[in-house]
């Protein structure tokens, strides 16, 4: 379907910042800093609760003005890996304001699991600068981690690719 060097179901973005890793870490883990940048244009972050330790939960609210009035969206998740100033891994699912993950029926699905995504932030110390690599990937609720899901998906995609190559080759 696409070049095999590009994971089909992940966004990977690399950026360098003119700040030390400890400050970039604060951007992700201190609510007052996180709120200052996380909402894209036109979106504010009125709530950011973060229990930053493996197994700790997070709850983030995004608020936007739409033609139909102000709209709030809630996201909850769990911190999977917390290595200060180096590596942060957390999950994200849509939820209500109490952090209850929206069930498949809430999303209009008769059965199955809600889509959960995983955000991986890796920081590399370049002296006074920091290289940051963000990976945002989809996983299924039944998978223990992003790797399992991504691998299964890539396997399936490769399988389909091989099959269509056979058909048309």
């Amino acid at each position: 379907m696409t070049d095999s060097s590009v994971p089909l179901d992940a966004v990977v973005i690399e950026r360098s910042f003119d700040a030390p890793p400890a400050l970039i870490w604060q951007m992700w883990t201190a609510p007052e800093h996180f709120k200052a940048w996380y909402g894209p244009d036109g979106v504010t972050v009125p709530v950011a609760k973060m229990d930053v330790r493996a197994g700790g939960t997070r709850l983030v609210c995004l608020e936007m003005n739409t033609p139909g009035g102000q709209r709030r969206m809630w996201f909850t998740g769990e911190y999977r890996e917390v290595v200060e100033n180096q590596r942060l891994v957390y999950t994200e699912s849509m939820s209500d304001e109490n952090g209850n993950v929206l069930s498949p029926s809430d999303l209009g699905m008769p059965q199955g699991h809600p889509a959960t995504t995983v955000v991986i932030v890796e920081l590399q110390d370049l002296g006074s600068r920091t290289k940051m690599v963000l990976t945002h990937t989809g996983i299924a609720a039944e998978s223990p981690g992003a790797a399992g899901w991504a691998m299964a998906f890539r396997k399936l995609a490769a399988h389909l690719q091989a099959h269509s190559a056979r058909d048309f080759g």
Partner: protein
Amino acid sequence: MLDEDRLSETFAALASSTRRAILARLAEGEANVNELAGPFDLTLPTISKHIKVLERAGLVVRSQRAQYRPCALDPAPLEEISAWAEQYRPVWEARFDRMSDYLMRLRSHQRTDEHDD
């Protein structure tokens, strides 16, 4: 524009290893419910339920040929998933532009503070 509901359904459909295995089997060629049930230790109604989920997600189409009704794979929704991931890219890029601006504001504040001291 992507159809969000349809995408959620694709993800839900792919969330089961049994359904992924069914898709992998269908990538080899069409098959009916009996043939699909073969490799799995599952009853026909259970397999039928999985196929219905895949049908609703648009991943499987069933021929109307009576009795046999073979299932075939339609990979189009899988391609949409890659578009789903890509639609996050501009959101993150915009966020990191803001993070960069914010870091600059923090630094200039720090400099002002140092100057005041």
